[in-house]
């Protein structure tokens, strides 16, 4: 695995597009966190805070930031798509195998990126949320409620698994990006709404919606309530199942078909 990670490092070490996108995706998190906290900490908002509590104080800060960050995960998916489809564009996925990788090594290499991106994001999101909580909150640091950040992390992994799966199935960057964006901003939510309306809570079990169900906006979540929902563990289990299924399909595709 060390050799695979070293090889992947050689591939991106001087790849400007990669670093630019990663930096952009990572900067957006604290930028949005601070901007959001700044905007919503005005005088008018203080009245609302008195009713529902300050969403930027510990422990609510974790849910607030996790919920906010879940809207900004798209860029990480695009980053992973570019890393994977580049291999198909340059046909280096073939060359890596010709030169001596097993086909499964290629999957491990891309799973490494999936995990590296999600762990880095969790780290940046945690630091950012902590700083916002300390600066804009009224209570001292606490890890109570940190599970929401882990739900966000899980949802990010589901999204990256979808990006990886689309990339190995479609192989071309342009089409993969279009399909990924369409699924993210439209298809998942649309299907979920339709299913929720006509079938019931099961509509909340779609890949990305599962995460959204357990990451409500702090204020609205409290106001709306959660009658039409399963217990949290159901959504968590379903997200793990999606990740497992996605990775299984990626392995199947890479191991069985022509490269």
């Amino acid at each position, binding site marked *: 695995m060390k050799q695979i990670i070293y090889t992947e490092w050689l591939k991106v070490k001087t790849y400007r*597009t990669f670093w630019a996108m990663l930096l952009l995706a990572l900067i957006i998190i604290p930028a949005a966190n601070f901007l959001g906290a700044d905007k919503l900490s005005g005088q008018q908002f203080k009245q609302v805070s008195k009713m529902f509590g300050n969403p930027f104080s510990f422990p609510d800060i974790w849910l607030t930031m996790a919920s906010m960050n879940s809207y900004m995960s798209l860029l990480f998916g695009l980053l992973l798509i570019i890393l994977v489809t580049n291999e198909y564009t340059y046909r280096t996925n073939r*060359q890596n195998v010709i030169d001596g990788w097993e086909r499964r090594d290629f999957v491990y290499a891309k799973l490494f990126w999936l995990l590296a991106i999600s762990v880095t994001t969790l780290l940046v999101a945690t630091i950012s949320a902590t700083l916002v909580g300390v600066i804009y909150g009224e209570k001292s640091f606490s890890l109570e409620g940190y599970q929401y950040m882990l739900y966000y992390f899980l949802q990010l992994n589901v999204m990256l698994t979808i990006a990886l799966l689309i990339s190995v199935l479609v192989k071309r960057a342009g089409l993969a990006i279009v399909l990924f964006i369409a699924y993210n901003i439209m298809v998942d939510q649309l299907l979920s709404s339709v299913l929720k309306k006509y079938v019931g809570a099961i509509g909340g079990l779609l890949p990305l919606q599962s995460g959204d169900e357990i990451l409500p906006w702090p204020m609205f979540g409290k106001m709306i309530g959660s009658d039409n929902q399963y217990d949290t563990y159901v959504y968590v289990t379903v997200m793990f199942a999606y990740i497992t299924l996605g990775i299984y399909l990626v392995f199947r595709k890479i191991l069985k078909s022509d490269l």
Partner: protein
Amino acid sequence: MPILSLKNVSKKYGPVQALSDISFDVPAGSVFGVLGPNGSGKTTLLGIVTDVLKADTGSFTLFDKAPTGRERRQIGTLLETPNFYHYLSGYKNLEIAAAIKHRDKEDIGRVLDICGLTQRQHSPFKTYSLGMKQRLALASVLLGDPDVLILDEPTNGLDPSGIAEVRSLVRKLADSGKTIILASHLLDEVEKVCTHVAIIRSGKLLLSGAVNEVISRNDFVELSAADNNALKAALLQYPGCTNAEVSGEIVKAFFAVPPDAAAINSYCAQRGIWLNHLQRRKKSLETAFLEITNHATS
């Protein structure tokens, strides 16, 4: 121990039978030509051997073992087109190849030098000409000085001097005892170096084995005299001559056994025919190849 042993390998692309029931062995130390016209299945066959394509049926071994990445790392392979990261320099691309092949990156300078890319090693791959890309692919093949090489159309995209250099490189590698599997539709490319051949046409193996055993390339003699028609008539009566034909300014005479030029010269002189040209020739691989493939068609 065969370096590569194929057993009943078949592969279909939809309705097209790309390979059917291919079996042959590549002996260690041989220069093995995989010959066939464009689209005959050469690259598909080598794609299966390098695990980028999956055979529908059949199996193969590398170094007498079930093929894995470990075996592929011992082989320098250039398959079809040079595949490199466009945004990286030639040197950095070779660093990646060396990491995957578990080869020392200290060797990169040597292979870049052999392939004439030292000057441009730090330029991005995307700025390379077609010939330079092919040279970089050859440099990658030579990384770590592997004992076995698979070269699929290695002179693609090269200019005449590049083609000559690659041919001389292949000859040098062959002379140093390396096993080379060379796929090409350019027969003069393999004619001088191949010890063994497999000829494929439309996915079928027409023949395989040592060149001298499987391809009949009987010698013939080119002659000319003042009266070529008289020369032809005389040659047809020469013992062992199977055919003689006038072709332009010369007469080509074919024999059942290797001909003795001195005896032919003496025979003609005795008949009052004074030769002004006499040369023993070997049927070109191209002619033999066309005969074999045309025979298969008919």
